[in-house]
């Protein structure tokens, strides 16, 4: 049963991720990306990590994708305004993408994806309390550094969005 759910979710994830790339209309691409995030959240729930699943939905599907959709709706892309890409740029894109894949495969092929032993495995590790303990005890420094990074990004966004002297919006 769980195995079948896993296969279904994996199928859904891969298909919708592919559709993000292949669909002609960018709005549909964004909607497929949202579907991808949902199926990834499904995987988190299968791993008994409910907190990660909920946060994934809230942050990615609920906030970031809304902003994506927001911007794409403004672009007003349709068939008439679609730019024709030349063969050279398509060729270059294929080579660049292929090289990236080679690098990824080379980097990841020898990775030891930490195996688990049934005896030492804690099935409750994904719960909020346990995750908080791990985050604030074992990984406090990376956590704090990440928040500094967010602060810098936020300050940058505010700087970019600030009205320049003499500029008028309406």
């Amino acid at each position, binding site marked *: 049963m769980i195995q079948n759910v896993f296969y279904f979710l994996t199928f859904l994830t891969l298909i919708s991720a592919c559709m993000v790339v292949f669909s002609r209309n960018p*709005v549909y691409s964004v*909607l497929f990306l*949202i579907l991808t995030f949902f199926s990834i959240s499904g995987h988190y729930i299968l791993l008994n990590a*409910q*907190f990660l699943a*909920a*946060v994934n*939905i*809230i942050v990615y*599907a*609920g*906030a970031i994708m*809304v*902003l994506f*959709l*927001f911007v794409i*709706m*403004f672009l007003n892309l349709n068939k008439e305004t679609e730019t024709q890409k030349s063969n050279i740029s398509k060729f270059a894109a294929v080579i660049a993408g292929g090289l990236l894949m080679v690098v990824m495969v080379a980097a990841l092929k020898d990775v030891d994806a930490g195996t688990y032993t049934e005896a030492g495995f804690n099935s409750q590790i994904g*719960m*909020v309390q346990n995750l908080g303990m791990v985050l604030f005890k074992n990984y406090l420094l990376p956590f704090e550094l990440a928040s500094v990074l967010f602060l810098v990004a936020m300050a940058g966004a505010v700087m970019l969005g600030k009205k320049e002297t003499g500029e008028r919006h309406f």
Partner: protein
Amino acid sequence: MEFLLNPFSINALIILAIFGLTLFIATYCTYAERKIAAFIQDRVGPNRAGPLGLAQPLADAVKMFFKEEFIPANAHKFLFVAGPSLAMLTACMSSAVIPFGNTLIIDGVGEIRLQGIEVNIGMLYIFGVVALGVYGIMIGGWASNNKFSLLGAIRAASQNISYELAMGLSIIAILMMSGSLSLREITLQQGGSFLGISGLDWNIFYQPLGFIIFLTCAFAETNRTPFDLPECETELIGGYHTEYSAMKLGLYLFAEYVNIIVASAVMSVLYFGGFNFPGQEWLRANIASDPTLAHNLVTIIGTVVFFGKIFAFIFFFMWVRWTLPRFRYDQLMHLGWKILIPLAMINVVLTGAAILFWPQLKAMF
């Protein structure tokens, strides 16, 4: 009857009952809205269909179903239909984790929770579903291929994102106090006594500022006046639902009422003690000699009281709609980003300080 008496089928019945009740209350919200509007404007309101006009929602539904289904020629057909469906789906999903009552003890079955599902991330679930609610409006507004609809959709998106932040920050203060994301746990923690009255230990007494922020954000998230900018008819005709007709329009309007019910229920749970009511411990001790029966009776009264709280909030939503004028869009953004978010952050810091220094304060007196 025998096959019904197991935890699984009872839970299924409770889920069905919650779903049906939500939709039923939403139906009668349309009637209540018109009656309350009429009362505030010194009119009579709907009084033709049935006694006191009580069959008016039925008549409205029949009208909606039999109107012409119209899809504009250049609309994206699939998304045009998906928009209102998504709005309704996300609205109905969020009532699943709300605890409508304490437990019922039934012979041979055990304790039954009056709740759809009990998860330890209940609050995050509600927050996530609310965050998804904007997609129905955005997709419908964009798929209509109409400038006014698009403007409405874009307004909805930016409004929801802006007010979600302040809402999340006001919830954080509650979570700091309760230490749990489960709505049932948060409710049960409010069952203690306050000033000697049992069942009155509500969060509103500790988080008045947080409640005002949450309330304001709830108005913005449900697109209600004074924040109904996405459908602002003086500027945008009908906003995101300009091109919609028949039951697709009906679904959008209906989803708004379901959202109001859920927002009212969440506010009751977070700040007004959920199914706790003043004097419940006294009632539990005196209502019946059999402790199981007393527990069940108190639970049932608690559920009734909880619905009373929901109705009071729904009335408040309608009262505000027919009293306050609409905000201007820049005022809305100013309120969200420059007033509510800083206030919510101050509230978080104050709550943290209070929790830290509470033992010392207690020792001083």
